[in-house]
């Protein structure tokens, strides 16, 4: 997936010289995960910029660049470090188009690695997506495979609105797959039904998609057919696809790494209530991170892995 994201950045930077990459250590070394590797060599100091150590400054300055007409793609080194930029993102970036009556949109794509699974502990593992989905004016994307990563990133860069692009770091290298060469976009706002099934809809994204698939494989052995939806875009979520699926199955399980309470899963449950209440044959279930900080040693107990998803799927199917 690292390569696919790198491809997408390079492709867009070649196509459009307004696209600039900035962040901590994104230059010569190519970022701590090497996602921007080689870009500095090709595009130089003016378009691939190592910044001072301030996430607020990175996003704040990028807003200015965007106002001027550039298309900044700032990187936040880990999404756990996005909070110093939270004010600039929610108070400024998200609201600029609206408060200026459409006259001062600030378009950028904030890329940041998300999620657990690399033994990072409290501060290198978080999944803060719902903290941005709640804020009107932002789009939020999270790919689960290299092809989508490339296509969604290119689409995000071309989209007129600010996009938060969460990259599931657990599968940065693990997720493999063919990536189309050259121009390739995946539309923002469209989920993918990665497996059809009759009994339970399972909603997931990013690294947890693979856990959902693993759980579904097990469930299948018990005769339970899961329909797995990879949301891909978290906001605006593809409500049609997910509602259609729940209408078909009557049952839903949503999986995410972030803590359960006020996580995006709650919104998905509420949406399904609003749009498919009569079709629900079982209570929607959330399989999530616990309502605790993210642990170091007990990381694999914390994550909603297949072994936790499976019983939820089975119970929901049998309800």
């Amino acid at each position, binding site marked *: 997936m690292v390569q696919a994201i790198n491809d997408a950045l390079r492709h867009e930077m070649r196509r459009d010289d307004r696209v600039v990459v900035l962040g901590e250590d994104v230059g010569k070394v190519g970022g701590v995960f090497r996602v921007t590797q080689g870009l500095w060599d090709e595009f130089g100091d003016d378009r691939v910029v190592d910044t001072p150590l*301030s996430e607020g*400054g990175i996003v*704040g*300055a990028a807003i200015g660049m965007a106002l*001027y007409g550039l298309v900044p793609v700032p990187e936040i080194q880990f999404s756990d470090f996005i909070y110093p930029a939270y004010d*600039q993102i929610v108070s*400024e970036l998200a609201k600029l*188009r609206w408060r200026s009556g459409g*006259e001062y949109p600030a378009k950028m794509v904030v890329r940041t690695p998300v999620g657990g699974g690399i033994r990072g502990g409290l501060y290198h593992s978080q999944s803060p997506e719902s903290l941005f989905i709640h804020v009107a*004016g932002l789009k939020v994307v999270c790919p689960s495979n290299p092809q989508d990563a490339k296509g969604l990133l290119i689409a995000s860069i071309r989209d007129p609105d600010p996009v938060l692009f969460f990259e599931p770091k657990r599968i940065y290298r693990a997720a493999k797959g063919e990536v189309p060469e050259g121009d390739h976009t995946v539309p923002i706002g469209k989920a993918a039904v990665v497996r059809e099934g009759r009994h339970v809809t399972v909603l997931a994204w990013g690294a947890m998609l693979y856990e959902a698939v693993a759980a579904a494989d097990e469930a299948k052995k018990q005769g339970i057919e899961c329909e797995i939806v990879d949301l891909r875009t978290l906001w605006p979520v593809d409500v049609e696809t997910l509602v259609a699926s729940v209408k078909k199955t009557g049952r839903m399980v949503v999986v995410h790494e972030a803590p359960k309470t006020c996580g995006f899963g709650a919104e998905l449950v509420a949406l399904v209530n609003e749009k498919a209440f009569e079709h629900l044959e079982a209570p929607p279930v959330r399989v999530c991170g616990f309502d605790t900080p993210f642990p170091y040693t007990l990381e694999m107990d914390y994550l909603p892995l297949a072994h936790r998803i499976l019983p939820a799927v089975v119970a929901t199917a049998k309800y």
Partner: protein
Amino acid sequence: MQPLASSSPPLPLGALRDDGSIDPAHAAALSDELAVALYEHMVLARSLDERLIGLQRDGHIASHASAVGEEAAIVGAAAAMHDDDWVFPSSREFAAALWRGMPLAAYAHHCFGTARDAGKGRNAPDPPFWKAARVVSCSPLVGTQIPHAVGVAWAARLRKADVASLVYFGEGATSSADFHTGLNFAGVTRAPVVALCRNNGWAISTPASRQTASANFAIKAVAYGLRGVRVDGADVVAVLSVVRDARARAAAGLGGTLIEAVIPGVERVDPVARMRTHLEARGSWDAGREARLVTEVRADVERAVAEATGAERPGRETLFDDVYADRTWNLKEQSA
């Protein structure tokens, strides 16, 4: 406690002398026409300000960030910038927007939040914005606009355009995170930015002495490798001169400047009266012109206020526009 860095003179620079004459070091580029324009604009700002204070007191507008006594700092700095430059106001700089061409009526529509406001009535009054003149839409959040101004200037520098940015803020804003990160980025990128700190001595009820223990505000430039300058903020000619100089240095690639405009307060020095004294000393002003100006300005202000007072409110459905470039499905549902 701290000795001053030599780049930051302990006493603010001034240009206007008590007798109305100008220190020759600053006189060079001030034509009669510009001198009169600065004065007229300050009179307009004052008149409008007083009217808005009244409208706010009577509940016709929700709030108003008065700039009485600060007109010289605001107008002088605005006048020093070029047309292609960008201006980032904090809450008190409506006069800068007007100087750059925002019509009076447009500002009134903004204050009243009418359908004809450029911001579609979405913002509480102040600061206003005016796209045609690159006066940017800023929030009332203290300090957040500073990195934006730096980002614009940086982008201009990367694009090799002769464009600088001017960002205004109060001395309270120097305590904000964005002051620090913004100016630190400015130092590192050598972005052509002029950061104008209006030190009026107060952040609401908090005195400057509780805002920071630094010797003054300009000296904070040292922390960012920027130039720091203190200027008399009730002296429009000095502000004009200092900001022009800062803009020229920035454009020449010499980096940004943090300017502390020290505002004595209108009870101590009225910057408008002071400039009138200068115009009189210069022979460009008299009682007749003053009377005409005052009448004209009042009429202009009343016309603008009248226009906005009666104007239509934005329609409910406008709420859902501009959240995104296109309405998302949830906004379509909610607008129904």
